[in-house]
């Protein structure tokens, strides 16, 4: 459905140096440095997937989204999305995609939401019946009924984001690009937005590509992670695989009835100990958690056991570290 092969893009950036003389000089002669924003990006996305596109700031996420949505023309490489080359057949292609820029609104600020929707209907030339059906479905699933007649400027950020997503789905696109859809949202709104993304993916089979800095978005939504850093694709795999790669460590915390002697557990390394509580780190590659707990229960009278995996956030940080970005 989506195929990118060897996409590369570099930008000329004007050098800015400090000092008045330098600034005056820059008025006439501008020195440019060439920044390689994307280098040999290659990946494929199948229909119906949800792909989380992650990477630190300035890594090239937005540039990739811009190339895929037909805004930017890359310097080299091949890209085919639903049979279109996005930047060549722009107007035909964009009928099939929806784009949400989390930081920018696409709704008309001073008029009720429904007016914006109707204008979008005319922009996309959505047939009346399809518009009505889509509008009702979206209002239902996103719980927008009460919001449709409120001017956009009076909506809260969470309410607005729900309307933004609805607006980009009115024309029934097959692919949805979400650029930081949960930025600045409160916990309740975040969950509502994620729930909705899942729903349209499941029920309508919409392929979703989302960029985010919030790893809980990835955890809740993405089947697959693409990580980009310094313009290069560094990781392509599922969250499970990432866990397998870095996440074999478990932290086991046990509470027990006061026990004076130190515990003896050769399978695990002791992180902290007190007469009532001990914390172990277990590498699941070498030992099973069950063995550790079994051994512990022979030595002390256990009250509570908690097993924690490393949070995704931590995994991503390690991935960034491994690739030095």
């Amino acid at each position, binding site marked *: 459905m989506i195929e990118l092969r060897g996409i590369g893009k570099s*930008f*000329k950036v004007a050098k800015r140096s400090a000092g008045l003389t330098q600034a005056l000089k820059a008025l006439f002669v501008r020195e440019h440095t060439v920044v390689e924003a994307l280098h040999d990006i290659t990946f494929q996305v199948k229909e119906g997937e949800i792909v989380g596109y992650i990477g630190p700031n300035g890594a090239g996420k937005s*540039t990739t989204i*811009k190339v895929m*949505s*037909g*805004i*930017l*023309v890359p310097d080299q490489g091949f890209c085919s999305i639903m049979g279109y080359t996005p*930047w060549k057949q*722009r*107007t*035909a292609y*964009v*009928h099939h*995609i929806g*784009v949400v*820029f989390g930081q*920018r609104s*696409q709704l*008309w*600020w*001073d*008029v009720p939401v429904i*007016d*914006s929707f*109707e*204008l979008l209907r*005319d*922009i*996309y*030339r959505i047939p009346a019946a399809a518009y009505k059906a889509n509008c009702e479905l979206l209002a239902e699933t996103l719980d927008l009924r009460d919001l449709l007649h409120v*001017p956009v400027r009076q909506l809260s950020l969470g309410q607005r984001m729900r309307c933004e997503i609805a607006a980009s789905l009115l024309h029934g696109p097959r692919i949805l690009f979400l650029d930081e859809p949960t930025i600045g949202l409160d916990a309740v709104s975040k969950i509502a937005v994620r729930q909705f993304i899942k729903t349209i993916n499941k029920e309508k089979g919409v392929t979703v590509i989302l960029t985010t800095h919030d790893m809980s978005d990835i955890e809740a939504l993405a089947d697959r992670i693409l990580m980009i850093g310094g313009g290069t694709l560094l990781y392509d795999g599922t969250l499970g695989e990432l866990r397998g790669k870095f996440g074999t460590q478990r932290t086991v915390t046990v509470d027990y009835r006061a026990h004076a002697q130190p515990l003896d557990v050769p399978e695990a390394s002791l992180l902290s100990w007190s007469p009532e509580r001990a914390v172990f780190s277990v590498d699941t590659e070498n030992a099973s958690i069950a063995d550790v707990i079994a051994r512990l229960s022979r030595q002390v009278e256990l009250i509570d056991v908690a097993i924690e995996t490393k949070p995704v956030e931590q995994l991503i940080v390690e991935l960034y570290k491994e690739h030095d970005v």
Partner: protein
Amino acid sequence: MRLYFKYLSILFRSQMQYRASFWLLTCGQFFSPFVMFAGVYFMFERFGQLRGWSFYEVALCFAVIQMAFSLSECFARGFDAFSGLVAGGDFDRLLVRPRSTALQVLGSKFEFTRFGRLLQSIIVLVWALTNLPVAWNAAKAVTLVMMVASGVLIFTGIYMLAATLCFWTIQGLEVANIFTDGGREMAQYPLNIYQKWVTVFFTFIIPFGCANYLPLLYILDKADGHEVMYMLAPFAGALFLLPCLLVWQIGVRHYRSTGS
């Protein structure tokens, strides 16, 4: 075209959210060219005529160009205010919609308060027309309408060129004002009062002369033969928009390859 009116309607409703500001600005717009026109009036009071042009003839010239200017500022404001659209990154949004960029930019902004200025110039127009001894016929009336329309298109073309500059530099747009405001000021008077090169520039490069001076000669029966040519001058002026559209397309292509 239908979509253009939809844009018009939604932005009009937006504007109506701020009624007080709308009325104040409209009044302001009504009075600002009034001062300019008063200048013209007092000049004629002092000198009687200008190179064979009477006060009412110049008033007609003034009214036509002011009408064209206010209409273009109202309906093509999107291009005039385009730098904001690029700087804010909202131009990307237009590119992911299945319509031409020119139409979407036109629809991005309207300046309804310019109706104040329009009203003022209509008053001047009516005043000038009732005092001019012109033998009116259908052809002349059509020509007059075409003059205003042609002026609107020329101003729009200049806004477009200025907007295209935004793709290369966000600053330095004051250059365009030389042609919009400057052109308007010059074209308020019949072009033959100026130096030759000014006349040539505003006839063949930025063809304001085609929109008011040349057809005005026809309306006032000052044309020396070839009346049809003078009458059709507004169409020639309107052609100015075509190269502007072309330049705009080049600008959009540049934007899409540099992303800046």
